[in-house]
């Protein structure tokens, strides 16, 4: 194929190959569209490119620790819990891709095929109308143009393919899905569940739904994936395909159709808008190795570059019609960025169940407390609420006291079981505000000539009040269960470390106050769609990846039908 315009023209272009881009690729390719998938990082092929996946603890030179020089040179990524010796090759180092922090913001990135879906925490809770109706009820941001009923069938669609382990809990605030069997809760988790349901009408402790194949179905076998073995080493990539990542599922699925062209090392500089045709016609790509400029063309373009990079590409896509970024006539592009408030933590001990323990595998999930605050009506001095993780386990303890033979005897002895350790982390909704925004640095550029992104996003008073309430409510609940040594802490972590940054290209009903319509389509540039975190109008409390997947499948389905009708 020669390098002519025709060879660089496709039916669809998907920018990004991570959590949501993989879904766009799969949907387009399955429906017969010749699809170009652009990924700024390298290729990561399932199984082949998981170099650490079968390594034993002693095979890691530093036993998992990240060397001092790397930590010193890369303070942001070093704060990420999963940036350890076994998975650090999947994370972007600060030094490789700088950005400007107007306010402290820990931007955690994974530039490779699969993106952060390789290292994600695999929590998959659905949203409900308590979330979608939040902005309208509580008077912030703008009303979502969609409701739960719009997304529900698409949740089911992606859940069946991805494989979600869960329990049908029958809760209106956390709708049930298409579940594979749950893993067990521990004795103390079940005990706490009982204590909470006896003491509180609207509070529940449930098994956290997660993207693990607890009982693979034919569709998963067809993907070449097998049962989760409870290794809990997911961040390395799984040799069984036991959890959902793009590399084991959507990307090879799209590949199999013969319709996908996957192009790694492709930095998208901007989207090309044709002022005569009044629509986007393609994308301007810089090859990250050769720095060569290349243009690709397609009648429909999906932006799935990850929330913040999607904002960056759009802000950098200037034309006569859109001098301030693609679709940005109202000046709202890059604004109303929000995230999840993960600062609050609580831990404790429990003296009961001395005769019981957990055993066998290393369970890759925990229990979960869906949002109960301000659920049915406003009842506190802050808006919205928080969900919480909950886990209770018993570690075996090796006695390292003594010296010489004494110490050695201790090390050789059967480990003793310690107390039950209890812990929760808050996952709080934050309120999108115009003053939390991203923009282009007017002077600084990266190695590919793309302006550096400037991030100006911070916590506010609502977040602080919510943390206080989390401490109070959880302490009360822990106390009712008889937990002791209760200890609360505020990590004071900057936004970003939650890795749930959202917004900047929000959906809405009105082109004056939003950028995307209910189909994730620009109000004023109908052939460009955004279905990653950038489209989010509000954040709810749930881990967002499952919602991005469902939104992407839904938006792709709509785009395909519009293409067929000749509407794009």
């Amino acid at each position, binding site marked *: 194929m020669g390098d002519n315009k025709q060879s660089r023209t496709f039916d669809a272009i998907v920018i990004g190959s991570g959590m949501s881009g993989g879904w766009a690729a799969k949907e387009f390719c399955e429906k017969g569209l010749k699809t170009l998938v652009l990924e700024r990082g390298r290729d990561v092929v399932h199984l082949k490119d998981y170099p650490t996946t079968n390594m034993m603890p002693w095979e890691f030179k530093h036993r998992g620790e990240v060397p*001092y020089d790397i930590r010193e040179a890369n303070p942001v990524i070093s704060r990420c819990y999963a940036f350890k010796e076994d998975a650090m090759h999947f994370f972007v180092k600060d030094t490789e891709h700088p950005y400007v922090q107007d306010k402290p913001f820990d931007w955690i990135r994974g530039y490779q095929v699969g993106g952060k879906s390789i290292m994600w925490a695999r929590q998959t809770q659905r949203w409900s109308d308590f979330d979608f109706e939040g902005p309208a009820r509580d008077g912030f941001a703008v009303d979502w143009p969609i409701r739960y009923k719009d997304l529900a069938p698409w949740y089911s669609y992606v859940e069946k393919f991805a494989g979600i382990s869960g329990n049908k809990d029958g809760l209106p605030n956390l709708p049930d899905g298409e579940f594979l069997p749950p893993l067990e809760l521990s004795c103390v988790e079940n005990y706490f569940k009982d204590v909470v349901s006896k003491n509180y009408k609207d509070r529940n402790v449930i098994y956290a739904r997660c993207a693990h194949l607890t009982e693979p179905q034919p569709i998963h076998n067809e993907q070449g994936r097998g049962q989760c073995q409870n290794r809990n080493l997911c961040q390395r990539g799984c040799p069984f395909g036991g959890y959902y990542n793009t590399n084991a599922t959507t990307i090879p699925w799209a590949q199999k159709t013969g319709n996908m062209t996957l192009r790694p090392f492709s930095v998208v500089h901007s989207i090309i808008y044709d002022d005569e045709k009044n629509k986007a016609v393609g994308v301007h790509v810089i090859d990250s190795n050769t720095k060569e400029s290349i243009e690709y063309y397609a009648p429909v373009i999906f932006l799935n570059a990850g929330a913040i990079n999607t904002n960056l590409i759009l802000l950098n896509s200037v034309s006569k019609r859109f001098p301030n970024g693609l679709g940005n006539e109202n000046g709202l592009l890059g604004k109303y960025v929000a995230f999840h408030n993960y600062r609050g933590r609580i831990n404790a001990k429990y003296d009961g169940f001395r005769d019981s323990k957990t055993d066998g595998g290393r369970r890759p999930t925990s229990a979960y407390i869906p949002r109960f605050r301000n659920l049915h009506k406003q009842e506190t001095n802050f808006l919205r609420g928080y969900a919480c993780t909950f886990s209770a386990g018993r570690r075996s303890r090796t006695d390292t006291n003594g010296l010489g033979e004494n*110490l050695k005897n201790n090390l*050789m002895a059967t480990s003793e079981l310690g107390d039950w350790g209890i812990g929760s982390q808050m996952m709080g909704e934050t309120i999108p505000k115009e003053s939390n925004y991203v923009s282009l640095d007017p002077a600084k550029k990266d190695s590919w000539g793309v302006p550096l992104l400037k991030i100006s996003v911070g916590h506010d008073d609502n977040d602080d009040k919510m943390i206080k309430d989390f401490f109070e409510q959880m302490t009360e609940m822990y106390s009712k269960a008889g937990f002791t040594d209760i200890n609360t802490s505020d990590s004071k972590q900057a936004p970003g470390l939650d890795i749930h940054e959202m917004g900047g290209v929000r959906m809405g009903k009105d082109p004056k106050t939003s950028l995307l319509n209910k189909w994730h389509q620009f109000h004023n540039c109908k052939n460009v769609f955004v279905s990653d975190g950038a489209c989010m109008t509000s954040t709810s409390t749930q881990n967002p990846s499952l919602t991005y997947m469902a939104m992407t499948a839904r938006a792709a389905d709509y785009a395909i039908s519009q293409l067929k009708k000749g509407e794009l």
Partner: protein
Amino acid sequence: MDRRSSIKTLFIISAGAALLPSCLQEDEKPSVSLQKIKINKKEENLIAEIGETIIPKTNTPGAKDVSAHLFALMMIDDCYDPDEQKQFTKGLKEFDTFSKKKFNKTFPECAPPERLELLKSIENKNGIPENVSFFYKTIKSLTLQAYTSSQYYLTKVHEYKLVPGKFYGCVPVKKAS
């Protein structure tokens, strides 16, 4: 159980390293390549002997058998911050003085029971020079880490299962037999 009977061999520890001519070792490089901290072969041997006193070879492997001292040096070199590295090497130099003060000889010259006594005195008593205490604590924690994360320990003592399989949320604790 083999492991338990092994305790009887407590004091049969080779003092071979102590007999090597130490002046030669001061010019010799250590067995691992180090970028930041300066350690000679003699000091490496001292650290190996301290490690071996902490976890001695019996009829099961000791610290030296899992190369705990080399792991410790590599970790201090790669993972510790410059202040910690400085304090560690200071403590290493002062350790000799500390040993001479107590037993009139260097640690490798001490007999095994004296070595154990010396380390116990650092663990238990106040008034130990700060750098010596830091040096010792660092060696102990890295020796423990090296030993309990070694292939030997994780295959023969407390087996690490790479593929553990089913998770059980609540099972009775078996009484020790």
